[in-house]
């Protein structure tokens, strides 16, 4: 097990490196640069600025310096657009925000989704089942960019219960709408996967044996059926976890949370190279780690899997 984890982490290093190199060159090949503007800078001013940020160096040298600074100083470079902040600042400010409501959305989506799915499977073909399936499908069809406007119009404009955006230190009123917007469609998917998985498990031989032994339904479900049911759910949750953290771009922008998604999109549009690359690396590392955790979780859920 430990050897497996170490092996996986070692493979992660070249993966991340490849990600950095590929992103670096793609970014530089995109037309326009950080200082392209409607008001073209006089050549001398542009030269001064480029010299200041090392952009006058050949690309390979820039890449080398970039990697060197990360490895040696853990410095992800300056922002070209926001002169008084560097990438470390931007991530330190934005990531905790994205992480907070990303985690909350993940928890809400998982708890509600799994509960709905189990309820539907246990009461197969009853009104509970139809209701849960209907809700699941409806939720899945409501991506966050549809949920956002619906929520704001309802809770901010018509009912006047919740502030229409902002962060304000992460007070609960400011969290509700972003979390619902982000969680809804994943919750729908989780509910459907859980339901079909549970139905399959409930029809399998070992459950029939458990029932035949005369075990109460509750024990059958919780002790025997739940773990195998969750296996496909877990394999779905891994990517979902990364999505709620990285895919929160819309929510960040729509609800003005100050999260990292806004900085990410903004940096791509303004060719703020170091910010774009820094956030890409962060998301890359997260993806690799979460995938590893997911694989490890399989072993716990399914005794047949051993590393």
């Amino acid at each position, binding site marked *: 097990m430990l050897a497996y984890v170490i092996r996986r982490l070692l493979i992660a290093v070249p993966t991340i490196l490849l990600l950095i190199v590929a992103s670096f060159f793609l970014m530089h090949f995109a*037309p326009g640069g950080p200082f392209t503007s*409607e008001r073209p800078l*006089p050549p001398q001013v542009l030269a001064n600025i480029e010299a200041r940020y090392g952009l006058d160096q050949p690309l390979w040298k820039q890449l080398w310096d970039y990697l060197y600074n990360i490895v040696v100083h853990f410095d992800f470079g300056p922002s070209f657009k926001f002169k*008084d902040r560097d990438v470390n600042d931007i991530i330190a400010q934005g990531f905790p925000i994205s992480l907070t409501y990303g985690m909350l959305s993940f928890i809400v989506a998982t708890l509600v989704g799994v509960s709905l799915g189990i309820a539907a499977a246990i009461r197969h073909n009853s009104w509970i089942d139809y209701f849960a399936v209907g809700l699941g499908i409806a939720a899945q069809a409501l991506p966050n960019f549809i949920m956002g406007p619906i929520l704001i119009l309802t809770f901010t404009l018509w009912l006047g219960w919740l502030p229409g955006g902002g962060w304000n230190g992460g007070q609960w009123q400011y969290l509700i709408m972003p979390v619902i917007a982000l969680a809804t469609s994943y919750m729908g998917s989780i509910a459907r996967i859980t339901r079909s998985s549970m139905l399959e498990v409930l029809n399998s031989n070992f459950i029939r044996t458990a029932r035949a032994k005369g075990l109460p339904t509750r024990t059958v479900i919780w002790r025997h059926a739940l773990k195998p049911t969750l296996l496909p759910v877990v394999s779905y949750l891994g990517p979902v976890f990364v999505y709620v953290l990285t895919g929160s771009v819309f929510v960040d922008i729509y609800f003005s949370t100050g999260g990292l998604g806004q900085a990410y999109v903004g940096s791509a*549009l303004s060719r703020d190279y170091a910010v774009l690359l820094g956030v890409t690396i962060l998301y890359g590392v997260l993806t690799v780690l979460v995938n590893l955790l997911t694989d490890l979780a399989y072993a716990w859920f399914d005794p047949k899997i051993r590393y």
Partner: protein
Amino acid sequence: MNTILRNSVAGLLCSTFITGAALAAGNHPVTGEPLADDQTFVYRVLDEHSSVDPQVVEDVSGAEIVRDLFEGLMNQDENGNLVPGVATGYTTNETKDVYTFTLRDNAKWSNGDPVTAHDFVYAWKRAVDPALSSPYAWFMELMSIENAAEIIAGEKPVDDLGVKAIDDHTLEVKLSAPLPYFPQMTTHSTTFPAPRKVIEQFGDEWTKPGNIVSNGAYVLTEHLPNERSVRERNPMYWDNENTIIDKVVALVINDENVALTRYLAGELDRTEVPAGQFPRLKKEYPNEAISFPRLCNYYYTFNLSDSGPEAFKDPNVRQALSLAVDRKIITENILAGGQPEAYTFVPEATAGFTPPVVEMATMTQAERDELAKELLAEAGYGPDNPLSFSMVYNTSEAHKKVAVALSQMWKQKLGAQVELANMEWKIFLEERGNQNFDLARGAWCGDYNEASTFLDLLQSDSGYNDGKYSNPKVDELLAQAKTSDDPAPLYTEVERIIAQETPVIPIYHYAGVYMLDSDVGNWPVNNVEQNWYSKNLYKIAE
């Protein structure tokens, strides 16, 4: 004596009067309106500001904050006129190439230090210093300050800049060429003073709340990037007694429709109205939906360089395309926000600018269409040989609507085959800057309230002249205007030439279209540059 000096005397008298009246009464000292207990102004900004460092800031939302945090030599009033800032007035020599500013002796930084002429000298040298490499260094060059260009180019040491503190309260500026509107340019944030001690102590971090020391009516107290920034009253400000707004909150809201919803829910005091929604909002909220002219134009530029289409080399073709644009449809049906139709490049609202009588503007649209067809036929284009070209604009819903309307007008009236393309902003700039286009969208907001800020775009060697229009007569007139005491007729003449030759198609001039809470007093709707100062606003009790 200069008008500014006279103004400043009037200003001093006025402020003495106000101080005498005392503010605590809860009524506005001049208008008598009852003031709200909570003097907080909350407004929406589209994007996170680039910086609040006066010498570094390069975007509008950043400049708005900087104008509250710092105060330069001169300010603008509600109508865009110059009023004293840190300087109480100025004098200039006969040849208008030396300006001497007198600084008030009661101006203080927020840490209590006096604001002196040395702070301006430090700031101005900082702005041109290649070590800071300010993206706005060019502004100091535009101000014609002696040696600015050479210092930026690294050919002369920073200390050679033509600015000198004669004593703590006298600042002398030498120009490399006479510039009649030099004082107007000192309202620009690049020229604001900078606190040397603090910058040297904190380096790049000096603008963070807690570190920052400023000399304006407000200090920065909170900043969560991409979410909000908060500025609060600076008790050290020399005119603090007459400042009414206590706290200003700028909320970053990227989506204009969300911003409007949050405005309607009462979270904001001011936001922009999305294109096309003004008539509805005006009907529902007649006291809150406002529209007023701004100092910006919206146009399409022909590519007149070698890479441009042959057809556009013919002025008749360009004229025909311009004539066939029904500007009324665009301003009234698409934008619907009170934008004026444009027949000149310079907005009519620009100070000291008299637009020429442009023939096109006096015709009906039917007459224009008729003439357009004739001109195009003359140029050899018709049903058998249709005019065909592409037009590019940067990706945006509003630009798309305008572009589609234009292409349809040209197609229906002139039978032209128009291909539309949109590009992401940076790619668009790159392509337009490299003349990889036939017809491209352009827009320009004045850097200062004077026609040359627009017309310079059409000068042959201007870096912003993406259409590569070149006319020696225009260049000559513009060069003359730079040093002329009365440049207005020269600008009018330039516009007349542009109207004939049509290197660009002016579409409309911008309007500021806002939802502004009716309890916000004194919003400067007549300041076409929209240089607003929170210290001049107030909230009326509801």
